[in-house]
């Protein structure tokens, strides 16, 4: 998205989104606790931009993406897409809203019904939301297949006959069928071979430029997010710890978790690689059913302070467009000092290496 200038009109507004999965026990399914998969997340996505959402496995990023389309019923908070709060819509109204928001799934093998043909899969949204004649529907299916680079001859084949990259193209065509404005890409490239990843990402970028799409791009691949995203949100244990523009986040990560995450990305230049200092986090991610007191990251944070174990840090806008939830930046003076220290180049990253997959 280097050539892409997003407008500042907000398309998606998420405010205080919470999604708890209840843990029940006993004969009467008494609620004994919650898995706090998404715990008070707020962010905006501007029209035409790509917001990257990164974090480790199990941090709640996929759940957050699915909650945004209300594939799960949210516990609390609001999700406004084009001004409509879809968190509160009735099932029927939600169904009518579906065409504006779509999803591309992680595993193209699992997200396509093995008993439906390609035409059936791509045509399904058309069956549900339009009253096209057979011929018109087929024409639209062909148009979509052309748009994602699939040969029309494949229309009557079944998903098992395709490679991973082609299957993902089918998934993208299905998502595009109803001319959506907003697409949640839930790790769309994680299940693909490295050589195919770039193709799919390029396709997504091309479609965004052509159709003016807005993406939420969920990934654990930091290099890929750096390539595709305009702004990046970092998630840890159900919360967004840092949200900033791509340049700011990668050049000068502020939250200790972001710093650790980015320090794990290998450097292609051997000189820089030799001087790269990795921040190794100790311990495991706490269970989202039983998060720690205070800051969620306090059990593993290398810069942990007393206050972190008692008080949960609020997300504050330290610079325009830059939100960080960390006690290190409570006062302006410490903020400047730490930011300067972190910007010293020791955690520099590859600037353009979209094919390196980095699992964190």
């Amino acid at each position, binding site marked *: 998205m280097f050539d892409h200038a997003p407008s500042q009109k907000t398309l998606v507004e998420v405010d205080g989104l919470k999604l708890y999965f209840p843990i029940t026990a006993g004969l009467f399914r008494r609620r004994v606790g919650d898995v706090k998969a998404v715990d008070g997340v707020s962010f905006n996505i501007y029209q035409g931009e790509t917001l990257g959402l990164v974090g480790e496995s199990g941090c709640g990023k996929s759940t957050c993406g699915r909650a945004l389309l209300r594939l799960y019923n949210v516990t609390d908070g609001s999700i406004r897409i084009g001004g409509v709060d879809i968190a509160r819509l009735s099932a029927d109204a939600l169904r009518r809203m579906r065409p504006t928001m779509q*999803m591309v799934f992680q595993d193209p093998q699992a997200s396509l019904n093995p008993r439906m043909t390609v035409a059936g899969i791509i045509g399904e949204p058309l069956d549900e939301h339009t009253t096209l004649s057979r011929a018109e529907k087929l024409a639209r299916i062909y148009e979509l297949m052309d748009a994602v680079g699939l040969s029309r001859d494949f229309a009557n084949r079944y998903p098992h006959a395709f490679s991973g990259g082609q299957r993902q193209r089918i998934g993208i065509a*299905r998502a595009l069928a109803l001319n959506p404005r907003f697409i949640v890409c839930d790790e769309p490239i994680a299940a693909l071979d490295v050589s195919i990843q770039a193709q799919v990402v390029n396709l997504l970028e091309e479609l965004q430029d052509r159709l003016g799409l807005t993406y939420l791009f969920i990934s654990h691949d930091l290099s890929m997010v750096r390539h595709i995203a305009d702004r990046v949100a970092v998630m840890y244990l159900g919360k967004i710890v840092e949200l900033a523009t791509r340049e700011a986040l990668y050049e000068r990560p502020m939250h200790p978790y972001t710093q650790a995450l980015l320090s794990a990305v290998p450097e292609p230049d051997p000189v820089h690689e030799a001087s790269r200092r990795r921040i190794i986090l100790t311990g495991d991610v706490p269970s989202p059913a039983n998060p720690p007191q205070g800051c969620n990251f306090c059990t593993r944070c290398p810069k942990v302070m007393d206050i972190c174990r008692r008080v949960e840090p609020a997300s504050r806008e330290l610079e325009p467009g830059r939100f960080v939830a960390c006690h290190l930046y409570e006062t302006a003076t410490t903020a400047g000092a730490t930011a300067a220290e972190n910007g010293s180049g020791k955690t520099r990253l590859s600037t353009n290496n979209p094919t390196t997959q980095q699992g964190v």
Partner: protein
Amino acid sequence: MHSLRQNKLLAFALAFVVVQVVLALAAPWLGFQDPFRQIMSQRIKAPNEVNWLGTDQLGRDVLARIVWGARTSLFSTATAVSLALLAGGTIGLLAAYYRGWFDRIVMRTMDVLFAFPILLLAIGVISVLGPNAWSAAIAIAIVYTPIFARLLRGPALVLCEAEYVLGARAVGASDLRIIGSHILPNLVSVILVQTSILLSAAILVEASLSFLGLGAQPPTPSLGLMLSEGRNFLLLSPWPAVFAGIAILLLSFGFNLLGDALRDTLDPRLRDAEAVAQ
């Protein structure tokens, strides 16, 4: 190679079942003797050139009565299993799809039904409806409903969590479409296999009920009834009972074999396992 051997087994099982079913269904037109005609002078005869499988205590042709009995058996078991599949399948699918209190209440009810011994429950139902072939069918249907409900709920639960079901929900597909075109088609193999195996078991249950006098009533030809009546003349002439028993065995065995062969052919895991072994 696996498919060849499995296909042979499947073809054999299918042929075995089809021959029996056709024989039973087409019985009125195949030139068998009249199963109701009693010839007093020809009672309790051993197999001979006129009555190939002998005659019973009322001088009726055993072969004709067996073929007509199989017809009765198949009609009631097919009705019973279809009803059970329809009711149980619907319950299982809806329970898996909607979960929550509906799932809990319905499946606990199924568990209660499931807890009864099969014959006891069937006898209970028949004692309410009165003994005849249709009551037997309804009783078997009620007994088998929880089996289908449970059987389909399991895989349906898994399918409900499949990403393509989520994908269908994301494109705004209706519940009916999700169940009808995403969940049900992926359950076809489970349904086929289980229907065949339960048909085999239902034939035995139907025969047991007739044997106890709770199924088809005389003079309707019925395999269980023949077994029961033949029992009284076992020392004089074992033929009616023995041949009726063999007929029950063959019918039940055929469907069981078909179910097994279908499972081996349709279960992708077994198929893969054999492919690896070769």
